[in-house]
């Protein structure tokens, strides 16, 4: 069996999160009743004309800059012609030979090693609608319905260079890309809602070779996991073809996630001729330095920058900084908490520990919960002030995450105030010592571990509310005294 190197390029479509569509004023809200977010322009009625949404252009440029691209001073829109019912004009307004931006890169990190994946181009285009295939069962009339709500939602297409060498790298590229697009607030990047879509090209070549092998194009990749699995499958499939002396066919394949295999969609000979030509209804785009410097000025901190800052300023480990910055909302939360006075490491520990555990279990983002940075800060100071223990805090946190109540309210309502009254604690300690003569003997005969049990008993009696430090010292006093 030969040793092959995989050559992978990814084509990502991201819906821009503008309020309105790219060429008309219709709203872009997801999940509305079919054909309620439409007008003559996005329906392609006779005589209508497109007008470019400047917010979409702005967001596309922002994305291109965040991906280190060169912005073309002049670019233009072209028509991509093909017939399909989800495309009302039967052409898509896209960009062809003069895209918005080119020659960028995205940094990924695999096993601690950094690598740049080239970005071939970033261009702006309109999304198509959705077909709903209805099988009406009993009757002879099978039909399809079209929902044009999505028609004209702005998209950016981000095409990577064939610089990716493994499914792991592909997944890392996508994770980083998604994080960047979310940081700069240009896309929601929800694969399950289709606001982020990915196609992949993959070919194999003998390790060390500089020429490219024949590639296949993979479609229907509906999650990052699907991208990973489909690429891994293709590497194995193409390896077997080559090992058996065969040749890989240039074709378009669909990933069947349920069966875990790729299946042929169409061959090279069935490739579309899109008959691209310049869109005469739109004037060429001129991007001035002025426009670009305005966007650069408004560019927020990017994930890599934030990660460096966390390591530098908050003293977080590379791992912690990576985990926290992967989600913009989570690290925004951390930044807000720190701004409100939280001790950064303590806040980071709570976020990475209990908070992420609960969020993962609930499959939620922190933005989906009523928890606010102010509440976290309040909880941290309750711990610092000895009002509640770290253990009680876990209970309080859970309550905060689900109800949105402030920690003070929760502590009061649930009676979770830490007992720091020395005489009250002494009474409990004396009772515990009295009830556990054997353990007390163990302790006195030098078994230090026995102390832990006694502390636990005090906590049990006080429902966890006893101040642990005070319990320790009082216990020692009673036992040693």
């Amino acid at each position, binding site marked *: 069996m030969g040793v092959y190197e995989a050559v992978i390029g990814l084509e990502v479509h991201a819906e821009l999160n503008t309020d309105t569509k790219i060429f008309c004023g219709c709203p872009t809200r997801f999940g509305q009743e079919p054909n309620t977010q439409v007008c003559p322009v996005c329906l392609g009625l*006779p005589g209508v004309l497109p007008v470019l949404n400047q917010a979409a252009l702005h967001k596309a440029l922002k994305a291109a800059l965040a991906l280190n691209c060169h912005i073309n001073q002049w670019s233009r829109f072209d028509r991509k012609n093909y017939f399909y019912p989800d495309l009302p004009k039967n052409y898509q307004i896209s960009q062809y030979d003069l895209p918005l931006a080119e020659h960028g890169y995205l940094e990924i990190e695999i096993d601690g090693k950094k690598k740049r994946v080239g970005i071939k181009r970033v261009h702006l285009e309109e999304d198509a609608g959705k077909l709903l295939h209805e099988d009406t069962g009993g009757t002879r009339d099978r039909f399809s319905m079209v929902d044009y709500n999505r028609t004209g939602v702005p998209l950016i297409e981000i095409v990577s260079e064939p610089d990716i060498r493994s499914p792991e790298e592909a997944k890392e590229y996508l994770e980083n890309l998604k994080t960047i697009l979310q940081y700069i607030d240009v896309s929601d990047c929800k694969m399950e809602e289709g606001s982020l879509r990915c196609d992949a090209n993959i070919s194999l070549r003998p390790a060390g070779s500089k020429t490219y092998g024949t590639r296949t194009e993979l479609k229907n990749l509906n999650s990052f996991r699907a991208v990973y699995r489909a690429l891994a499958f293709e590497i194995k499939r193409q390896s077997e073809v080559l090992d058996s002396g065969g040749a890989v066919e240039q074709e378009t394949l669909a990933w069947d996630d349920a069966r875990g295999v790729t299946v042929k969609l169409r061959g090279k000979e069935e490739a579309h001729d899109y008959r691209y030509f310049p869109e005469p209804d739109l004037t060429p785009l001129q991007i001035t330095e002025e426009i670009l410097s305005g966007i650069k000025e408004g560019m927020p901190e990017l994930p890599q920058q934030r990660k460096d800052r966390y390591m530098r300023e908050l003293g977080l480990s590379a791992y912690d900084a990576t985990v926290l910055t992967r989600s913009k909302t989570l690290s925004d939360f951390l930044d807000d908490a720190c701004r409100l006075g939280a001790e950064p490491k303590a806040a980071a520990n709570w976020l990475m520990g209990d908070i992420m555990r609960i969020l993962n279990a609930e499959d939620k983002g922190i933005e989906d919960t009523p928890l606010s940075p102010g509440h976290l800060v309040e909880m941290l100071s309750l711990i610092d002030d000895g009002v509640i223990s770290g253990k009680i805090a876990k209970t309080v946190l859970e309550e905060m995450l689900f109800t949105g109540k402030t920690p003070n309210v929760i502590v009061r309502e649930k009676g979770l105030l830490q007992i720091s009254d020395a005489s009250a604690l002494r009474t409990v300690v004396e009772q515990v010592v009295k009830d556990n003569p054997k353990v007390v003997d163990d302790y006195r005969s030098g078994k230090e571990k026995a102390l832990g049990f006694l502390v636990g008993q005090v906590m049990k009696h006080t429902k966890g509310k006893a101040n642990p430090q005070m319990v320790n010292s009082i216990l020692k006093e009673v036992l040693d005294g």
Partner: protein
Amino acid sequence: MSLCDLTVHEVLDLIKSGEVSAKEVRESVLARIEKVESRVCSYITMTPELDSDGAFHGLPLALKDNICTRGVRTTCGSRILEHFVPPYDATVVTRLKAQGIGIVGKTNMDEFAMGSSCENSAFFPTRNPWDLDRVPGGSSGGSAAAVAAGEAMWALGSDTGGSVRQPASFCGVVGLKPTYGRVSRYGLVAFASSLDQIGPITRDVLDSAILLSVIAGHDPLDSTSAPVPVPDYVQDVRRDVKGLKVGLVREYLGQGTEDGVRSCILKAVEVLTDLGAHVEEVSLPHTAYALDAYYLIAPAEASSNLARYDGVKYGYRAEGAVGLLDMYQRTRREGFGEEVKRRIMLGTYALSSGYYDAYYLRAQKVRTLIRMDFQKAFSEYDVLLGPTAPTVAFRAGERTSDPLSMYLSDVCTIPINLAGIPAVSIPCGFSGGLPVGLQIIGKPFSEAIILRAAYAFESSTDHHKNRPALTGEGGEA
């Protein structure tokens, strides 16, 4: 002469002085329609309920049926849109309504504006009011015939390769194609987007200036409409032409131009010279390639623009289709006429992989050369002159079996669309009893200058005062 035979500015004066009412004018037009429409066949759809509010008192205008009107069907002369009712008004329609101009009907046209005789209408041919056996020209033939026959006070057409000017020439009226970008195309059903422009068809030059003032100007709904200020065309028109430098285009008087047309143009040159203009011959050397370039660029754009008529969303859908592809094919086979299908095929071919460079791209380069021809000429001349069409109106059926001979009737108008510049056709005489049109061409956004030259010529001639005999019967006054 009836009221409906006067110009708009004449009846406005009469209304102002109280001699006639706007209602009488509107009724005169409706009466004329009643009387001659069965012979002229200008209209596809009548909309005679005219509102009388506004500056223009509902003075009836004929609107080409490729300009969208809310609630009134807009067919483009095609089966595929026979029952299409737009839910919105074109920007020009909004502007007409705002000024109190009444739309009396939607006029016949070559299907999707593809043709030069109105014979490519899916419904019926329109006749030339000067000779009912002849064509009115096209594609805005219905609009031109309506104005010539007194079936409307004025009209709007659209001009992609001569579709306003050539029928104006054939029908003895004034037709203006403004600079590309001067008038919003929003709501004009696209034929060839980089060439299409809406323009007025009127009985004289002053009316053309008035109507242009109403429709011109930037429109935020049309990205290709120019943010160039709109001058006062009506004021500018009256200035004289002394010292105006005029270039007579040699190529437009070459082979294929009828003697009767040529002699009218040469007489017009004398008139302008007498008015103080300096007229010299000028050459536009790439004229010979204009027709070829146009018949690649326009069909290429059309093949894409007309792709939306697929039976899915609106318009005609073939019955009994099996599956999607079959529905597409049957719908378009049955819904489009021969000429439209011919051009869709031409355009699809010109854009296809492997042919794009040789056809579409090369045609665009020719287009640049033609534009440069004009730029060079305009560095020396204020306006250029020539015939609008090489012939007078030809007989119905004479060219229908030979598309190439039909295409040749736009040989003098097409270069102007390719260059995106303005041109006006005005009556300049008769040949064999049929009107001849003089074409005056200007620099981008110099409508005021070409209208001024046209007005000066018109003011010292009587050609525009003639009305076809058809309308003279009956002796209304």
